[in-house]
C-alpha cells in the first residue's frame, strides 16, 4: 500500500488472504453455483410477480422493473454481509485463527481481505441474476446507469458494517451464533422499504427506517425508476449513515480481537 510502511499495512498480506478465499471458492463448484443460485431464484420469483402486477397494479405498471431492481439491490446488501461474515466463519470451522494470528497478519488486514472477497462474491451472485433478468424479463438493471453504482456501493458498505458486527459476535460467542450470520439481516428488511415506500410503514416505525442507509437507497432507487431523478439528498444521507455504521462495525470487529486475546478465544475458536 502506497504511503504506508510495509510493516504496518501490507498489500501482500491482504493479497495472501484474498488468494486463500479465492482458492476456497475455486476449489468447490457448488460454492460458485450457490453464489448465484438464491439471487437468481429471487429474481425469477419477483420477475413473475412483476408480470402479474404490470397488468393488475398501476404502481408497478409505471415502472415495471421496480420489483426486480429491488430484489437485486437487496441481494447486494445480503451478499456483501454474507461475504464478510460467512467467509470469517470458514476460519472458525477450520480452527484456523490461531495460525493466522500467530503470523504478521493484522486484524484490519483480515477485515480488508474480507471486504474484497465479498465484492467478488457479490458480483458473481447478483451479477449472474442481473444478467439473466435481461433475456427472461427484458429488464436490465444496468440501464439505471451511474445511480446504480451509488446504490450498489452504499449497500455493499452497509453489508460490510453488519458483517463486521456479526464477525465480532462469532469471535465472542463462537459458532453458537452461526445462525445470526444468515438471519440477522432480515430483521431490517421490513423497515428498509425494499418493495414499498417508507411512507407505507406505520408512522411510529418510520423514524426507525430513516436511521438505516437502506431506506435512503431504496427510496432513491424508486425516485430514479419512477421520476427519472437521482435524489442527491437521499444519497448523501445514505453515505453519512454508512460512514457511521462502518466505523462502528470495524471498531467492534477490532475490539473483538483484543477481547479474544484477553480471553484466549483465538485458540479455542471453532470448538
Amino acid at each position, binding site marked *: 500500500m502506497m504511503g504506508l510502511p510495509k510493516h504496518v499495512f501490507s498489500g*501482500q*498480506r491482504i493479497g*495472501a488472504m484474498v488468494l486463500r478465499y479465492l482458492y476456497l471458492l475455486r476449489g*468447490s463448484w457448488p460454492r460458485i453455483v450457490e453464489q448465484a443460485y438464491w439471487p437468481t431464484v429471487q429474481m425469477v420469483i419477483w420477475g413473475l410477480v412483476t408480470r402479474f402486477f404490470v397488468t393488475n397494479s398501476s404502481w408497478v405498471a409505471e415502472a415495471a422493473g421496480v420489483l426486480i431492481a429491488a430484489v437485486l439491490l437487496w441481494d447486494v446488501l445480503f451478499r456483501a454481509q454474507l461475504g464478510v461474515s460467512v467467509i470469517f466463519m470458514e476460519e472458525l470451522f*477450520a480452527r484456523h485463527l*490461531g495460525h493466522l494470528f500467530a503470523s504478521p497478519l493484522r486484524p484490519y488486514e483480515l477485515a480488508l481481505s474480507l471486504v474484497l472477497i465479498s465484492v467478488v462474491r457479490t458480483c458473481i451472485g447478483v451479477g449472474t441474476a442481473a444478467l439473466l433478468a435481461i433475456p427472461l424479463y427484458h429488464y436490465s438493471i444496468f440501464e439505471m446507469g451511474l445511480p446504480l453504482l451509488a446504490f450498489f456501493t452504499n449497500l455493499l458498505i452497509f453489508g460490510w458494517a453488519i458483517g463486521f458486527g456479526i464477525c465480532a459476535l462469532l469471535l465472542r460467542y463462537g459458532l453458537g451464533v452461526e445462525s445470526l450470520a444468515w438471519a440477522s439481516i432480515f430483521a431490517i428488511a421490513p423497515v428498509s422499504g425494499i418493495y414499498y415506500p417508507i411512507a407505507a410503514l406505520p408512522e411510529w416505525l418510520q423514524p426507525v427506517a430513516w436511521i438505516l442507509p437502506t431506506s435512503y437507497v431504496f427510496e432513491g432507487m424508486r425516485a430514479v425508476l419512477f421520476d427519472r431523478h437521482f435524489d442527491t439528498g437521499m444519497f448523501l444521507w445514505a453515505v453519512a449513515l454508512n460512514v457511521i455504521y462502518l466505523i462502528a462495525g470495524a471498531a467492534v470487529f477490532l475490539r473483538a480481537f483484543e477481547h479474544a486475546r484477553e480471553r484466549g478465544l483465538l485458540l479455542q475458536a471453532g470448538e
Partner: protein
Amino acid sequence: MSNEDGDDGTSRRLGMAAIEVHQVSKRFGEVRAVHGVSFTIERGSICALLGANGAGKTTTLAMLLGLVTPSTGSIRVLGHDLLRHRYEVLGRMNFSSPYMDLPQRLTVAENLTVYGRLYGVPTLKKRLAELASRLEIEALMRREYRTLSAGQKTRVVLAKALINRPEVLLLDEPTASLDPDTADRIRRMLLDYQRETGATLVLASHNMTEVERVCDRVLMMRGGEIVDRGTPAGLIARYGRDTLEEVFLDIARHRSHDGLAATAT
C-alpha cells in the same frame, strides 16, 4: 536459561536472549492458567516446556505468540516487547501445533503459498520445493489438507512453521501422530535446521525421550508455575533418576528431588 533462573551452571552462553519472560500470569476468569512465571531462553538454544495436561504449557506458548494477552508481567521476544511490538516480531517467529488446523479444503501447496505470502517469503516457489523435499511431502502438495492422515498433517504444519525460516520456532508436540521412523527423521530435520540457522526452538512435549535427545534446557511446569528447570541430564541427576520421564512423574506427583513426598497443593 540464565543462572538467576536457577540453571545448573552448564548452560551455553549464546549471546542475547531470544525470549525473556518476567513475572507473567494469566487468569481466565476464576481459572489461574499461569502464575508468576519468569524465564529466559538464550538465542540458539532448544528449550522444552514439560508438564502434565493443564500445567500451563499451551497458554505459555500462546502468550509467547501474542495469541493470548498476559494478565500481568512482560514478555520480550528478540529484544522487542511483545505486547507493544507484536507485529515487528511475529514475522521472525512461527509455530506448529497438532491442535490447530490449516484450511481443510485448500491443497497443501495452496496452504503453504498463502502462508508464504503472509510471511513475505522471497522466492516462494523455491522455498516450497525445499520444504517439500525436506519434510517428504512432495507427493502431498496437490492433495487437499482434509484428505491427509494425522501424521501427514503434522508434517505439513511443520512445513508451514518453517516457511519463513523463523528465528524463534515454537513447537507444540512436534512429533504427535508420527510413527517412530518419521518422528525420528523430523527430530533430525529440526536439529539440522537449528544448527544451520542458529534458531531458538521452544517445544512443549509429552515425549520425554524426545526432550532428552533434542533439548538442552527444560522448564518443568505444574499448576501454572515453573517448579523446576535445568538441563535434562542435570534434572535426572538432581532427582536421582535414570530418565527424564521418571523426573516428570516425580514432579507431576509432587515428589521433590530429595525423594521425599512434598506437600500436595
